[in-house]
């Protein structure tokens, strides 16, 4: 392994990968573990990838697959069909309100959004990835990414509004979410 190149890769992507992992895993320890695991897999396999432009997508895809692997093992599944329909734009969350919020509070709100929406939403807000790259990472069609972004933002706004009011949001049914 070329140490300098690897260090640069870590420096460039570890923070974004950690944020994605944190939104998925919902706790710092698991997020750190997922981020490390992703780079360890790169150290043993990924360095064969010679197209630098694909390194970013490779890393996010690998992290996501690792997350799914761990999650499958723990038997947690969710189903998008069971999510409450909420396709209307909720009252606009004031942008100034979001700006005044603590970053962790915004992350908390994001973590309360159902996983199927949270996955593309987090990748979108990291801004490093286009919708086509998000589709590739999550292995879903482009239309699905757009649909989940649209619905996910509605749910995120609702949660942010609740956080701003200092209250709790009634969660979606947790019984059987399946992706």
């Amino acid at each position, binding site marked *: *392994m070329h140490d300098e190149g*690897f260090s640069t890769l870590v420096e460039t992507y570890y923070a974004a990968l950690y944020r994605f992992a944190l939104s998925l895993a919902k706790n710092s320890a698991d997020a750190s573990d997922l981020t490390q695991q992703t780079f360890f897999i790169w150290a*043993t396999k990924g360095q064969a990838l010679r197209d630098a432009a694909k390194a970013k997508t490779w890393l996010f895809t690998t992290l996501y697959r690792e997350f799914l692997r761990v999650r499958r093992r723990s038997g947690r599944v969710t189903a998008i069909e069971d999510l409450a329909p909420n396709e209307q734009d909720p009252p606009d969350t004031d*942008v100034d309100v979001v700006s005044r919020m603590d970053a962790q509070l915004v992350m908390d709100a994001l973590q309360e959004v159902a996983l199927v929406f949270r996955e593309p939403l987090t990748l*979108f807000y990291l801004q490093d990835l286009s919708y086509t790259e998000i589709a590739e990472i999550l292995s879903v069609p482009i239309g699905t990414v*757009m649909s989940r972004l649209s619905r996910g933002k509605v749910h995120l706004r609702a949660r*942010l509004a609740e956080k701003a009011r200092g209250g709790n949001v009634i969660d979606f049914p947790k019984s059987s979410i399946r992706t």
Partner: protein
Amino acid sequence: MNNQEAKFILGAYRPDGRDAGDPAFTEALAHAERDPELRAWFEQQRKFDASVSAKLQDVAPPPELRAAILAGARASQPRRQWWMKPAWLAAAAAVTVLAAVSVTLHPSPDAPTVAQLTAFAMKDLAEAHDGHVGYPPEFAGLQAQLASVKLPLTGPGGVAIDLEELRRKSCRTVTVAGREVFEICFQRDGTWFHLYAARRSDFAPGAVDAKSLIASTGDYAATAWADSKNVYALVTHAGKEALRRVI
């Protein structure tokens, strides 16, 4: 396109505007320009997205995470003996071919041969070479020269490598039988090539004719030559024909 369709598409438009050149958004963006209601929605949406995005960027990873990744990755590297790996077989094939063709090589007992350099270069490319992420910008000039020079790299004026300059710019170095070898990557017509250069005096004396010295195994192909100062091995993972085109 109606407003609902436009909203659906524009929901995937990143707030920093880096999707502006994506044709998938062209029609929806034009629609937003024409329709005041849609434009107001889009502006509000972008402000909201930018605001959430900025908050997300403020979430800092644990301070020790970066160091843990670097330390753990070093420990994660496979430690098999290099001669047991498949890539070594490719390198060995290169040695055999080169040794057979380069009849004018007369290796001394001490100095490594150009064939060894070439075998090493193939092995290095197959196993130890990292990706091209974060390639130092100091080498952009040399990379551009190597990418664009129309002469065969092996011919007079094809390439002139100043090893001292490479050392000053902290070019990647490897060692072959204790000899310092510099490696620089460059692209020609979308294909990556890897040039390994070393002092000629560090290697066994002899001449090599690069055009007759193409060794390949699978997609790995290598050649070697020398000028008055240096010896070179050029390797690619794009096959023999790709290599032939540049020499």
